[in-house]
C-alpha cells in the first residue's frame, strides 16, 4: 500500500506547553551553569523536541543537526567575525585616532547589516538541511550573498520610505527564500497570482504605522494620569518628595502598556502577511492556506514576549514554540503533491552552520528562523 493520500488539514503540532517548558528550564539552567557555552546543545535539544512534535500528514518532522556542528560553526565565526569585531570595538578605540576608529566602527555596522541578512540565510539553510520528513531532506539553494545584498537594498528602501516599503520588502524576502527552498529534489514555488505581492497588507500596515506612535505616547500619558489620580485621591501616600520607586513603577507600567499595544496594533499586519505568504507558496501544484487571525496571533505573540522578558531571555525558546505551534495548527494544504515522485535531496548538507547567526543572536535561542 502506498500511503500518499493526504487530507486538506494535515499539519499539526502536538507540543505541550509544560513539556516544552520543562526542557526550556533545563536548558536555561545548564546555559547559566556553563556561562552560556551549553547554548549549542540547548538549541539542538529544543529543535529536536519542537521538530518531532510537528507532523505533516501524520508523520513527524525530524531535526538531524548536532550540537557539535553548531559549536564548529561558532569556532569558524570566531576568527572570521569575532576577531575583526574585537579589533574594531576594543583595540581600535585605544590605538587609532578617534576619527579613524569611529569610521571603522561605522563601517563595521554598515557591513553588519548585509552580513546579518547573509547569516540569517545561512542559518535557515542549515536548519532546512537538517530537517527531514519521511527521511527526505529539505534544503535551501541560492547564494547567501545575493540574498544579503538584495535584503540590504530593501532595508535602504524601507528606511528611505519611512517604513512604507516594509510590506513589499517582507514579501520580497519571503519570495526569494521560498523560491530557493527544496523538499528533496522538489522545489517550492512562490507563485504569481496576478495580484500585487503585498495585496491586503497596506490597510493593516497603515493601522500599525499610524497607531503605533500614538499608542506609544498615549501609553505614557495614560500611566502618568493614572499615577496622578492615585496620588490625588489619596490612594497612595503623598509625601513632600515622591519616592523614586513610584516613578519607576509608572515608567515600567507604561513600557508594559506600550508592549501590549504594539503587539496588538501590529498583529493585523503580521497575520495578514503570514496568510498572504502562505497562500503563495506551492509545491508540486499543492497550495497552502494559513488561517492566522489578529487576536489569536496577538495572544500568542504577547505570551511569547512576556515569557521572554520575565525570564530575561532565558526562556525565549518558548516564544518560538508558541509561534511554530500556532502556525502549524492553522496551516492547511490544498491538493496533494506526488510524494512518490519526490526523491532525496542531492544538495550538499554542509558540515557546520549558524556561526554568524549565533554571533548576531539572530534567533535569541529560539531555534527557528
Amino acid at each position, binding site marked *: *500500500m*502506498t*500511503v*500518499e493520500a493526504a487530507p486538506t488539514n494535515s499539519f499539526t503540532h*502536538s*507540543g505541550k506547553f509544560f*513539556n516544552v517548558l520543562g526542557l526550556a528550564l533545563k536548558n536555561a539552567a*545548564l546555559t547559566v*551553569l*556553563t*556561562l*552560556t*557555552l*551549553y*547554548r549549542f*546543545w540547548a538549541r539542538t*535539544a529544543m529543535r*529536536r*523536541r519542537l521538530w*518531532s*512534535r510537528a507532523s505533516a500528514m*501524520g*508523520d*513527524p518532522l*525530524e531535526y*538531524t543537526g*548536532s*550540537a557539535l556542528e553548531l559549536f564548529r560553526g*561558532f569556532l569558524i565565526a*570566531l576568527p572570521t567575525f*569575532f576577531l575583526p*569585531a*574585537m579589533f574594531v*570595538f*576594543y583595540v581600535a*578605540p*585605544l*590605538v*587609532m*585616532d*578617534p576619527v579613524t576608529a569611529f569610521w571603522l566602527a561605522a563601517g563595521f555596522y554598515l557591513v553588519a547589516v548585509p552580513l546579518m541578512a547573509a547569516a540569517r540565510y545561512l542559518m535557515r539553510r542549515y536548519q532546512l538541511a537538517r530537517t*527531514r*520528513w*519521511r*527521511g*527526505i*531532506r529539505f534544503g535551501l539553494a541560492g547564494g547567501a550573498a545575493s540574498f544579503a545584498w538584495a535584503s540590504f537594498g530593501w532595508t535602504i528602501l524601507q528606511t528611505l520610505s519611512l517604513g512604507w516599503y516594509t510590506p513589499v520588502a517582507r514579501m520580497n524576502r519571503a519570495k526569494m527564500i521560498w523560491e530557493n527552498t527544496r*523538499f*528533496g529534489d522538489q522545489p517550492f514555488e512562490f507563485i504569481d497570482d496576478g495580484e500585487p505581492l503585498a495585496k491586503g497588507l497596506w490597510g493593516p500596515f497603515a493601522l500599525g504605522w499610524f497607531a503605533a506612535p500614538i499608542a506609544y505616547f498615549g501609553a505614557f500619558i495614560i500611566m502618568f494620569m493614572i499615577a496622578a489620580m492615585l496620588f490625588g485621591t489619596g490612594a497612595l501616600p503623598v509625601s513632600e518628595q515622591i519616592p523614586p520607586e513610584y516613578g519607576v513603577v509608572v515608567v515600567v507600567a507604561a513600557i508594559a502598556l506600550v508592549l501590549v499595544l504594539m503587539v496588538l496594533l501590529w498583529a493585523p499586519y503580521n497575520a495578514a502577511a503570514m496568510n498572504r505568504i502562505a497562500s503563495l507558496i506551492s509545491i508540486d501544484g499543492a497550495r497552502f492556506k494559513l488561517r492566522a487571525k489578529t487576536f489569536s496571533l496577538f495572544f500568542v505573540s504577547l505570551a511569547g514576549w512576556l515569557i521572554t522578558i520575565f525570564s530575561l*531571555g532565558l526562556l525565549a525558546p518558548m516564544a518560538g514554540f508558541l509561534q511554530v505551534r500556532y502556525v502549524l495548527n492553522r496551516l492547511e494544504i490544498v491538493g496533494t503533491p506526488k*510524494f*512518490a*515522485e*519526490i*526523491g*532525496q535531496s542531492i544538495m550538499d548538507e554542509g558540515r557546520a552552520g549558524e556561526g554568524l547567526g*549565533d*554571533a*548576531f*543572536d539572530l534567533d535569541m535561542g529560539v531555534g527557528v528562523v
Partner: protein
Amino acid sequence: MDATRYADGRAAITRNATVEFAADRLTFSVGEAHHAWTCADLRRADDGAGRVILKRKPDTGERLYLSEADGDRLKLAAPALFGPRAYGVEGRATVLGVAGAAWSLAAVFLLGVPLAAAPIAERMPTRIRTQISDISWSQVELFADYCDDSDEAAHILNDVAYRMMAASDVAMRDDIWITIVDAPFPNAFALPDNSILVTDDLIAMSEHPDELTGVIAHEIAHIEHNHVMKNIVRSVGAGVFFDVVVGGAGAGQMVAIASVNLAGLRYSRGDETDADERGLDYLDAAGVDAAGLARLFERFQVEAQAQAGDAGEIPTMLSSHPATAERAAAARARARTGLSPSMTDAEWQVVRRACGSALLHQEEPAPVAPAAPDTPQAPPIQGAKPEQLEGGAKPGAATPAGHGAAGED
C-alpha cells in the same frame, strides 16, 4: 494508520512493513524486499506521541515507523535502544565537559588577565595611554564643568600633594596635577594621564583640610601603583571573555565600552585597600593626621546609610570597594595627635570657596588651627602644566585637551 511502515530514503512515501526482532538485529519485509538492520547501528527519531521511529547510522535516509505493538516488542528485544543516547540526548559527561571548558576559559580570562594586567599596564605605550586619556576626558565632560575661580585653590591642593609626594619620594610627582571640577557628587578621580579630579561637592563635604588631603593621598597612590591602566586592561580582558564565550548579544562589548567609561572604572577591592594603605603612608611621612580621612569615611558611611535606609550598605562581598567602616577604622588606627593641619586657615578658606563649594553648606568655612611654623613649605610645583593653567577658554582648571580620566573612586 498504526501499521509498521518503511521509508526508503529515496522517495517521500512510506510502505507497510512486517518486522521480526532478534536480540541484536531486526529484519523486516516490504513487499518482496527483505532488510536486516543491526541494533548497534540504529538510532531513534521518535515523534512526540510515543511512536518509535528507527534510523540507521550513518543516516541513509531510511526510516522505520514502528506500530505500537512492534515498538513494545523492540523494547523487550533491544532495551539498549531506549537509553537517552540512542535518541541523541547528550550524556552527563558531555554536560560536565562543557561546564568544565566554560569555567576553565573563565578562569583563564578572569584570573589570568588580572594577573597579567600589571605587566601589560606597565608596558602600555604612551600613545595608547594618551588615547585612553582623551576618551576619558571626553567622559569627564559629560558630568563635570570646569570652574573659572579655582586657580588658586588648585595651586594650594597641588602644593599639599607635592609636599606629600616629596616626603614619600613618589617617582612621578612632577607629572601629577590636581584639578577642581564642578560635579553633582562628592568624589575624586585618578586619571590615566596622572591627573586627579576633585569635585566641589567633595570639598564642600570636607570639614577639615586633612580630610581632603587624605582623599588626595589615596588618589596619588592609585597613580603611583598604576591602578588606572591595570583596571582598563582587566576590563577589556573581561569584555573579550564575554564576547568569546558569551556569544550573541554583545554583553562583552558593553563591558568594553564601560571600560573606558568612568562609570565602569572601579578599582578592584585589592587596589582600593592598596591605595588606602599607601595613602596613609604618604600622610604619615608628610605629618598629616589620618584622623581626617577617618572622619570623612565615617561621614560617607552615615550618608550612605541614610540614603539606603534600613538596607544599609552594599554587602562588602558585592562591593568594588572595601566597606567604608573598615576603611575608616584602618585610617583611625593610623591617626596621630599633635600634628598641624595640612593647610593653613587662609588656604583652606580659599579651597572651600573653589567652584562655590562653601555655598553648598551655606555657611562660612570653619577656621582651622594655624599652621605650625615648622610646617614644611611645598616647593614650586614642577609638575604644574602651564598649558592647563593658561588654557584660554577655561582658566582656572585643566582643559580637557590631551588629558584623560580613568579612575573613579
